[in-house]
């Protein structure tokens, strides 16, 4: 999800649909309510979670609540694209 001029706005939450198992713990953990259940299914048949595209506050709650190691990445406010982390 990108902004109009093609640049992401940080903080930003990225969810890998293939790694997501559709438990939706992240959705309910998000205080900003910016995650939702997708209407689409991933290849395993799960309705994966999606970031609405804006409004992430960088709290990281979804990241820590998600049981899948690599399903969620949260880029925080000070994130500089391209810099090794």
């Amino acid at each position, binding site marked *: 999800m990108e902004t109009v001029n093609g640049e992401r706005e940080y903080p930003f939450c990225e969810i890998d649909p293939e790694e997501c*198992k559709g438990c939706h713990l992240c959705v309910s953990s998000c205080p900003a309510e910016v995650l939702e259940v997708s209407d689409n299914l991933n290849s395993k048949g799960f309705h994966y979670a999606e970031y609405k595209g804006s409004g992430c506050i960088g709290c990281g709650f979804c990241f820590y*609540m998600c049981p899948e190691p690599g399903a969620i990445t949260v880029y925080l406010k000070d994130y500089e694209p391209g810099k090794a*982390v």
Partner: protein
Amino acid sequence: MAKKTVLRKPKGFLDVYKHKPGAEKDRTHYCPGCGHGILHKLVAEALEDLDVVDRTVLMSPVGCSVFAYYYFDTGHFQVAHGRAPAVATAVSRANPDAITISYQGDGDLAAIGGNNILQAANRGENFVVFFVNNAIYGMTGGQMAPTTLEGQKTTTTPYGRNPLTDGYPIKMCEVISQLYAPVYVTRTSLHDNANVRKTRNAVRKAIQNVKEKKGFSFVEVLGMCPSGWKMSSTDAQRWIEEEMIPVFPLGVYKDVTDEDRSSIDRPTPVHEVDRVLEALDVTTEKAELLSKREVEPRYANPSIRASGFGGQGIMSMGQAIARVGMKYGYEVSWLPSYGPEMRGGTANCSVKVQENKIGACEATEPTVIIAMNRPSLERFEKILQPDGTIIYNSTLIEVEPTREDAEVYPVPITGLADDLGNTRVQSMVGVGAFAGVTDLFDPEEVIKLLPEMFGSKASLIELNEKAVRAGYEYVKENF
């Protein structure tokens, strides 16, 4: 640690789960919403942040986390059901700088491995336990765990857990925190953001404790098992909050990490040959053998049965004869009766002192018996070889041997010891008497062995010396 600018898959995880069979090498085997996955992430992140990924050795238990080794970029042991604390004990002792983690479920830790966790905790082993309490056996399909709640339905408590037949939920933090050795015992939960955060802190603190060699840390984590509980993930979270927490209260049960306890120090094993031989008390010089004496044929290659009350020193009597035989270059063997028989009852031993390699070591048909009490005489004269020799303790045995073919030496063994002021030296009187009868060895050679046998206490040595001589001289003077 620099402030994070991104929250991504922690480096404590492998990029690609190489040990995982099949195509999906980028996702876990856990069910959606499983507590194990959340805890895995907290552990992997802590290993990275504390810079110990490369030093970590993880126990993968039997349970749903049996495949924990798929995921972490560390060393791994897959271990038997419940035994993770035993294996972790040896791992942390073998490589004391390793960050050893015992990861366990509630069936694993609190049922089959109940004693293993308790004992490792009590020893204060330097490792951390992450204990996932999900009130059920997940892996095997939802049977009762020791932590299953009262009334909770599982596949083996279809009518609900009945405490009168199935017992009550075991509260491990409460149990473990009663022990002195553990340094940090806490119970956290994964049912909401705030508690995930607390769990994260607990995980980090526990790993830090191991890093600083503070000893045993125990982190119990209430985790969801949506599959086992047959609920949605979010309902499972609610179930923890409403049903589990009242039974398993959250909080720190013990924290003495800041107390001034000594850190766990395991010295480096020594393998250097000189020090090893010194520890074994092995001398490098070859011992000079004494030249063997002329012995009457009936006393050559004796097969000896010494016997008496426990406490009469029967074992040391036999050992002394074997030891002195060695000095003359004989083949020797000593075989005790062992076990309950020794406790208060009679004791006996077989000694062989022979030219050639010794076969059977039990003196089933002895050529010489040394009987220190009456039951011994009666028992062993029956198996004495024809024309054998009987040396018996005439102080305590008021009957005479019945064997008419035998050569008989009544020696007041206990009496002679008593005259020296200590009946406890009667065994050495017996040895002296044996030397006097057989002339197999010089009694002075036994005396030289006394320090080796009884330690260096001078008064004791002197008394035993006198005892050997008294037995020897009595025989020489009277027969």
